[in-house]
Every structure is written in structure tokens, then in C-alpha cells.
């Protein structure tokens, strides 16, 4: 019998092949498409939903998708938009910019999608933006909260619906410098959202008279934070401000809770996404930001939660959070804008969205919200929360401790950085 020895070369060859297979598998599927064609009906408006199903933000991406689908279902139940049904297609963007870019291209050129919706990771959002801008396709960045998304990476065709790192820093940092202490350390996910969010926090800390002792950059997909926690203990800061997201923040929270480091120093976690919190509820600590909570005592919230639950019975998350909420709000406002514009022409829709104003009641938030026409970022209420010491039920994890009105938390730096191209330079798209 011929003996085959395994060599380093065959191991490396194998690993290359495995990587290629993994990439190919995600390229070819799984694809999901929801067609609502009826014979003789008007041509549907087709949306491409660019949502992560795997990687660092896989859970959040799927929660985003639930909110987007809910808004589409509501519109279709009322007869669609401009008398046309809404159809959609989605595939896993894998929390990877290259995949996001490839899918956006495919959705636009092969699947005839005229609008793209969905993002959690700012690198993915920026990659999709490049493709969408080249084709004049409107893109809703539902949940990526890097300040750069409405700053240097803004685009005429892109609208950003989440609060960003600067908004949350403005709502929390100055108060913490004065009430907790001036020595800060930053723990930053090493990609665009982490960098831009920590830069905003640093500016706020130094502006309030505090000092940043160190900024520890944490590579994405870090699972073991012991080295960072030792470094923090050695430096003895008053406050640690984190810009860590997705699965990484869940691992960090568990390790901080295990060591009981959640009391001192004080922790300010920029924004916590509900899917990340629900994934590991016992280790929630520190003060953190959000744009919405399912137990806000405001009109419409309870009804929205019931409707969401009715359409998401099988899901792993029992109630909607900020991610699903942003996905829903973005899609709902887009569909309303098309209705108001009376057209699916991209520039007409863009102009409608640029002038968007939504009442607090309609937004289910404390203050009226508006779209900043200069940066294309939704200006909305920013909430600060901490772990709820007296939860009413197992989903009641937050105690909302403050809400800041949009103007007070506005990212004024973004306005200087954002340069939108004139309307004439946007390629015309009509569904």
C-alpha cells in the first residue's frame, strides 16, 4: 500500500483550500428571497437587505433584519407603496467589508435592487456605501454608529439612523469627568467605529479637563481580555471608557464580571446593542448608551413590542431592542418618503429624507427627531442606562438614567467633515 505522509506543505495547502471553500460557500448562499408577485400587479419595489448573519455582529445583523422585515410587512399589509408591493432579498454580509461590497454589487447589478438597507459594522457600511454611491442606489445605514459614517464617509445616497459615538460621548463624558474622576483609560476595538468613537471620547474628556492615560486597541474577535484587564489594574484609572462591540463586548463583560472589576474603576460603555446584552445579560455593568428601550414609558412602545413579538415568535430574542428598532424606523421612514415623493426616483426620495422630521410620539422617544440635511444622520434622543437593580421581568435589564435631546448631543464635528456631492452627480435610479 502506498504510504502518504502528511507534510507542512499539505497542511498549508489544505488550510488555503478550506479558506477558499468557506468564502465560496458564503458567496453562493444561503440566499433568501421573498417574492410577492401577483399576475397583472404593478412591478414590485425590490430592496436588498445587507444584514450580517455571522461574524462579530451576526446576532445584531439578524435583529436588524427583523425590524426591517416588520416595516416591510406593515407596508405590504396596507397595499404596498404607491400601489406597488415591496419585495426583498437578503444574504449574509458576514461582518466583512469585502463580502458587504460583493453582495451590494450583486444585489444592484443582478438582482435589480434599487435600495439597500442594513448595517451594523461601520467597515461593512462604508464598503456598501462605495458600491451604492457608484450606482446611485439609496442606502440606509441602520445600525452602524461610527462617527465617520456621517462625517468623512458620508454620502448623498446614504442615511444613517443610529446615534453615533460622539452623540453618546457628549451625553455621558463631561458629567463623568466631574462626578467620578479625571484619569481615564480607553479600550478601543481596532476598526473604524472604535477609533472614531474613542477619538470623540478623548476630545470630550480633555475638553472637560480630564486626562486619557492610555488607549488600548483591541483587535476584532478578541476573546481573552486578561492582558488588558491587568494593564488597566496597573494604571489605576478612575474611569474606563470602552468602544468594544458585538461578541467582543460580551466576552469582555463576562471577564470583568468574573473578576468583580465592574465596581472600580467606573466603566462607560459607549453604546450597548440589545442583542449583545441579551446574549449575556448577567454580566451587564457600567453606564452605557442606547437609542431606545422596550420599556420606555411612552405612548406606542407597548403596542410596538406586541406587534414585534407577534411577527418574531421563533426568534432567540424575546423583545425588540435598539437594533431592531433602528431597522424598523429606517425602513418605515424610507417607505413613507417614497409615498410622499409620489415617485421612486432616487433624488426625489433623497430630498424627502433630507427634510425628514418625526415627532417624539411617532418615534416612541422623548424628543422630536430630525434628519440632518448636511450629514444625513438622524438626530434623536440619546439615552444613558445602567443595569436595572429592580427588574420587572427577565427582559427588564436597563434602568434608564437620563435622556438627552438631539441638539445637546449633536455631532457638530461631522458637519465640517461631511461633503455631499451635488444632486446632479448622483446617477439616476428609478425602481
Amino acid at each position, binding site marked *: 500500500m502506498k504510504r*502518504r505522509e502528511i507534510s507542512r506543505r499539505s497542511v498549508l495547502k489544505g488550510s488555503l483550500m478550506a479558506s477558499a471553500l468557506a468564502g465560496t460557500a458564503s458567496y453562493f448562499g444561503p440566499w433568501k428571497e421573498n417574492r410577492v408577485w401577483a399576475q397583472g400587479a404593478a412591478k414590485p419595489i425590490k430592496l436588498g437587505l445587507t444584514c450580517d448573519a455571522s461574524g462579530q455582529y451576526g446576532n445584531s445583523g439578524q435583529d436588524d433584519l427583523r425590524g426591517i422585515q416588520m416595516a416591510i410587512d406593515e407596508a405590504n399589509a396596507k397595499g404596498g407603496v404607491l400601489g406597488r408591493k415591496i419585495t426583498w432579498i437578503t444574504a449574509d454580509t458576514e461582518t466583512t467589508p469585502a463580502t458587504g461590497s460583493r453582495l451590494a454589487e450583486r444585489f444592484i447589478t443582478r438582482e435589480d435592487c434599487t435600495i439597500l438597507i442594513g448595517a451594523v459594522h461601520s467597515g461593512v457600511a462604508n464598503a456598501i456605501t462605495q458600491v451604492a454611491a457608484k450606482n446611485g442606489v439609496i442606502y440606509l445605514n441602520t445600525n452602524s454608529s461610527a462617527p465617520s459614517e456621517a462625517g468623512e464617509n458620508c454620502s448623498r445616497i446614504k442615511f444613517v439612523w443610529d446615534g453615533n459615538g460622539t452623540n453618546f460621548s457628549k451625553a455621558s463624558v463631561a458629567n463623568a469627568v466631574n462626578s467620578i474622576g479625571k484619569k481615564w483609560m480607553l479600550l478601543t476595538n481596532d476598526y473604524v467605529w472604535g477609533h472614531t468613537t474613542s477619538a470623540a471620547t478623548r476630545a470630550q474628556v480633555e475638553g472637560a479637563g480630564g486626562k486619557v492615560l492610555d488607549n488600548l486597541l483591541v483587535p476584532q*474577535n478578541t476573546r481573552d481580555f486578561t492582558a488588558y484587564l491587568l494593564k488597566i489594574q496597573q494604571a489605576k484609572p478612575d474611569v474606563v471608557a470602552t468602544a468594544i462591540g458585538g461578541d467582543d463586548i460580551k466576552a469582555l463583560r463576562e471577564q470583568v464580571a468574573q473578576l468583580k472589576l465592574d465596581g472600580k474603576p467606573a466603566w462607560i460603555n459607549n453604546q450597548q446593542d440589545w442583542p449583545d446584552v441579551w446574549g449575556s445579560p448577567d454580566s451587564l455593568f457600567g453606564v452605557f448608551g442606547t437609542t431606545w428601550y422596550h420599556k420606555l414609558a411612552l405612548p406606542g412602545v407597548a403596542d410596538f413590542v406586541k406587534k414585534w413579538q407577534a411577527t418574531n415568535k421563533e426568534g432567540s430574542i424575546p423583545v425588540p431592542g435598539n437594533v431592531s428598532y433602528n431597522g424598523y424606523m429606517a425602513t418605515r421612514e424610507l417607505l413613507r418618503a417614497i409615498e410622499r415623493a409620489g415617485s421612486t426616483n432616487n433624488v426625489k426620495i433623497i430630498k424627502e429624507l433630507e427634510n425628514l422630521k418625526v415627532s417624539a410620539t411617532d418615534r416612541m422617544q422623548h424628543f422630536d427627531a430630525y434628519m440632518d440635511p448636511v450629514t444625513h444622520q438622524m438626530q434623536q434622543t440619546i439615552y444613558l442606562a445602567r443595569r436595572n437593580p429592580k427588574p420587572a421581568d427577565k427582559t427588564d435589564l436597563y434602568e434608564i438614567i437620563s435622556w438627552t435631546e438631539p441638539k445637546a448631543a449633536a455631532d457638530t464635528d461631522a458637519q465640517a467633515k461631511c461633503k455631499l456631492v451635488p444632486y446632479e452627480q448622483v446617477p439616476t435610479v428609478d425602481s
Partner: protein
Amino acid sequence: MFDLLPHILNGLTLGLLFALIALGFMLIVGLMEQINLAHGSLFALGAYFAMQLMGPRPPFPADLAQSWLALPLGWRYAATLILAPAAVGLVGIAIEFCMRRTYGKDPLYGLLLTFGAAMVIEEMIRLTWGTRDYVLQVPQAVNGGFIFGDLIWSTYRFYAAGIAVAVIGLVWLLIEKTSFGATVKAGAHDSEIVRALGINLTRLRLLVFVFGTMLAAIAGIIVAPIWGIRPHMGVDAVIPAFLVIVLGGVGSFWGAVVAGLLVGLAVGLSGAYASEWSLLSMYVLLVAVVTFRARGLWGKKSMLEA
């Protein structure tokens, strides 16, 4: 220097965990000459089985479940350290049955088969437990932290490193000091002679593969309280495992252990002093070693080398 010591200690404990993760992978590559790409998924499966056993709804009939839950947490945890790897071992048996047609052929056949198995296992995990995260309960005695050198350390971290040392030692004893180990090594070296001596090679391969999958499961159980339990946690394990065995030299037991420690030190020290390099450092280390020593630290010498 005093500031550096905690990070060296952290690097060594992390390195032991990397070595533990790579151990089952190394055994199957070294003794069976098969690349088991399902190693990461079996690692994850071990963590999920343990979580199910330690959780409020253990997978037993009602009476047995009640008696099981009445046991102290420490006893349940100790039993889980045996039961969960045993259950994963059954999955290993199924994979090994499928792999038999690939023996003696190009290693890529086995690689493709185990890659497929990895995808199937990960999807089964998603279907069974969903996409949410879970936490593995551990006994209070090994949980929490302790103060040493003015710093708070994780008790579990040292417990996990201790388990890694124990498992590495036991595997070494089994391979190097027992007749079973000698037969397995002989089978890997020259299967035809071993078969001619009347040894059942099919059973031998099955035992080695199942042993490797059980080691993957033990690593998953030990690492789960640090990394958390989620469907794609296997990917986080299989990549460092791959790297450790290439760095240590394919098929070398102590090469894998030393490589694990080096990777741990690289990640731990860079995490403290050049944090953005902490994950990249292991790849830089691999490139540095392989550039000067293509077969890894303790890899077999190629016939092409002078």
C-alpha cells in the same frame, strides 16, 4: 520588570490553553496523518453539551434529571467533564466511519470531508441551541478572582491552566509510556507492518480519532467560561490550533506544547505593550519561525533537506 511579570504569567497560562486546544488536533494529524478540520466544531460541541448538562434542563429522563440537579454543582461539573467529551466521542465515531474511505489517499480527501462535517455540526448547533450566547456555570471554588501582587487575577484562569497541564501530561504518558501508545505510533509509522503483526488497525484508528475528538471537547469545556459559548466559537479555536501545530512542527507532541506557550506569550505580551498587535502577533511569530525553519520548531526533517 515588576510590571512585566504579570503579563509573562498571563502569557504562559494563555499558552497552556492554546496547547490544550491544539492537542487533539495534533494527535490526529501526528498519529493518523489526517487533518481534522472539524476540530473546532467538536470543541464547540463539547462546550454546548457541557452547558446543557450543567444547565437547568439536563438531557435526561425526568427522574434522573431531578436526581442529577440535586447533586452539588462541583459533582455535576466533575461528571460533565467526563460525560460531555464521551458524547462528543460518539460524534467522533460517526465522523471516523465516514473517513475510512479516505485513508491511504491524498490527505485533501480527509480534509474536505472534515470541513463538511464542521459545517454540518455548526449548523446543527444553530438549529438546536439557536444563535444566542450561553455561559457555562462552574463551581464557586474555581470562579471569581484572587489578589496577588496588588492585582486581581482570575481563579478560573489558573484552574484552566492546571487542567491543561494535567491533560497534556496524561496524553504524553499514554502515548509515550504505554503499549497502546507504542502500537499507535507504530501504526502511524508503518501501517502495513502493524497490520501484518495481527493488530486491528481499523480499531486503532477509530480509538485515536475518538480520543482526539474527546480532547477537543475537553478543551471546549475548559475554555468556554473564558470565551463564552456561541455557534461559531469553533472557528476561534481551529485557527490557533492549526497555527500551533504548524509552528511546533507537524506531528511533534512537545513542539505543539512549546508552540502553544510561545503563542500565548506573544499574544499576552503584545496585548499589554502593543495591544493592536495582540492577535496578529501569533501570525508574525509563525512567519518568523517558518522563514528560518520551514518544518516548524520540532517538525520531521524532509528528505529534500540536506
